[in-house]
């Protein structure tokens, strides 16, 4: 029987950026830039596309970047044995509000495809798939609150029905009105990659 393990995990809150439980960056209240841009610089990333993205996608990419490093030894390799599972509560409401402002007034009507495209919650999953070349199953679910049993169920069911899937990049990716609530992790069936078991206690400890 397959067992499931957490290979790495990360968290972004409005004040902290943590990887595998270690605080990597604390928000500097003096910083003139966006908190997400401060994290981008701290990670020494070079991904110009990042700056075109909405905040939901930016937070997903930033949370994934450090935990994907160990799996990017061959950066051009297509990953068909990986899945991506995203969940949140607000869907893309931050972007919906921004887009609505561009069409609200007849006298100031300027709908833009580059804003509209982000008014779907699963776009962050698409951006993650492109960045890490993941061509397996990708899905996005919405629930009122982060729910540990539901999260674990969605992840494990994805593995159970897709025998070719060995890894899943999964997370709760919520961003609304400057409130960033992001937890991402790599879950695998390979025990040798494990840092901790996938179970309710561990997920609760990481998330809460």
């Amino acid at each position, binding site marked *: *029987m*397959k067992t*499931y393990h957490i290979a790495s995990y990360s968290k972004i809150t409005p004040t902290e950026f943590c990887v595998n439980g270690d605080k990597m960056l604390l928000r500097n209240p003096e910083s003139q830039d966006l908190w997400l841009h401060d994290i981008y610089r701290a990670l020494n990333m070079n991904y110009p596309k990042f700056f075109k993205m909405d905040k939901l996608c930016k937070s997903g990419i930033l949370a994934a970047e450090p935990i994907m490093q160990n799996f990017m030894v061959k950066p051009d390799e*297509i990953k*068909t044995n990986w899945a*991506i599972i995203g969940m949140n*509560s*607000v*869907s893309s*409401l931050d972007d*919906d*509000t921004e*887009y*609505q402002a561009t*069409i*609200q007034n*007849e006298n100031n*009507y300027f*709908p833009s*495809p580059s804003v*509209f*495209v982000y*008014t*779907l*919650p*699963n*776009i962050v*999953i*698409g*951006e993650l*798939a*492109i960045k*890490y*070349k*993941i*061509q*397996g*199953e*990708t*899905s*996005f*679910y*919405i*629930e*009122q609150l982060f*729910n*540990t*049993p*539901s999260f*674990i*169920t969605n992840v*494990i*069911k*994805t593995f*159970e*029905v*897709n025998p070719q899937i060995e890894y899943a990049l999964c997370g709760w990716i919520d961003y609304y009105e400057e409130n960033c609530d992001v937890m991402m992790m790599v879950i695998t069936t390979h025990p040798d990659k494990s840092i901790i078991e*996938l*179970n*309710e206690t561990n997920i609760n400890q990481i998330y809460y």
Partner: protein
Amino acid sequence: MMNMLSHNIVSPLGFSSSENYQAVCAGKSDLTIYSSKFGLPGPFCASLMNDEKIEDYFSALPHTDTTIYTRFEKMAILSVQGAVAQTSIDLASPDVLFILSTTKGNVDLLEDLRGFEKERLYLWRSAQLISRFFNNPNEPLVVSNACISGCAAQIAAERFLYHPSGETIAEKSDGHRTYHYVVVVGAEVLSKFIISGFQSFKALSPERCKPFDAERCGLNLGEAAATIIYESTYTSNTSAPSDVISFHAGAICNDANHISGPSRTAEGQYRAIMQATKNLNLERLAFVNAHGTATLYNDDMESIALHRAALSHLPVNSLKSYFGHTLGAAGVLEVIISTLALQNHHIIKTLGCDVPGTAQKIHVADGKEDCSKKDAFLKMISGFGGGNAAIAITMRH
């Protein structure tokens, strides 16, 4: 494994699956050019629900206060009611899970809340109101995967149904339960928000769309709600219909290529088809119901996927010229219409396709093909975010 227990479609073409199916067979389409609607600056062609009809049908439901639900929620509730009315199951049972498929839910309220609370902008809130209308005690799940949501929701449904291997690992590890029935409801309403966005992408056809036609020039949007109630094959104790319709398999694969454009090699769609048909005798397939949005790139991509999967000899159809692209409802609605077609040994013609012209040659259905000895069909669908899904549905007499 799961079987289709009942279904319903609420669309401008009717309030039941059979009404919709008959309208399609008669070549009806409600795609209309609206010159001034939703405060949009220009005309657009779409398939929109008649408000008065929604109100008439909704006020006929028992114990309903018509003021407390949004238009989106009313359509979804009517569709679930239409599906459950054909069965003896009790949606208030803890054995039933609701899965809502939608891309934008009540997004029209962003312009004006019209007296509704701000919480109604959350998809989970709409889902709760829909499932609680039927007194369902479980927390509903929302699938929001852009245009593939309706198929993704059916693929998710199967995972939550009871399986005889006993408790799955998931249940053991966290106490999460499985269900005997899943109600998959897909719904979408249109508004200035959605139409202006597709206009900004220059994706809309000014008149009725022409899927797979050489002259196709874009898609139409449509409103609909569609429901399928699936039951676990292993707990089936309800009176089985004469034909047993089974969800054979489904798969989702990402292109990892572009967030708003299909892959030029159809990589994700091709692999989704291969996975969904892995254990299926391909001789059984009567037809392929494609996404067929009538955008240049989508229809080309699908022709490439079918070619790579060696299925380009099969009749292919698209239902978009009948209903428009109904977004979160599309995957549910189109599986229902295709199921009825399969049961009637009929392949629906692709309205509006006069001269096929796609990157790879495909056999666009003209409605005259014989499929009397076939008992399966393949559904494919793809969308923003690079997602592609395929579902194989089979029938047993």
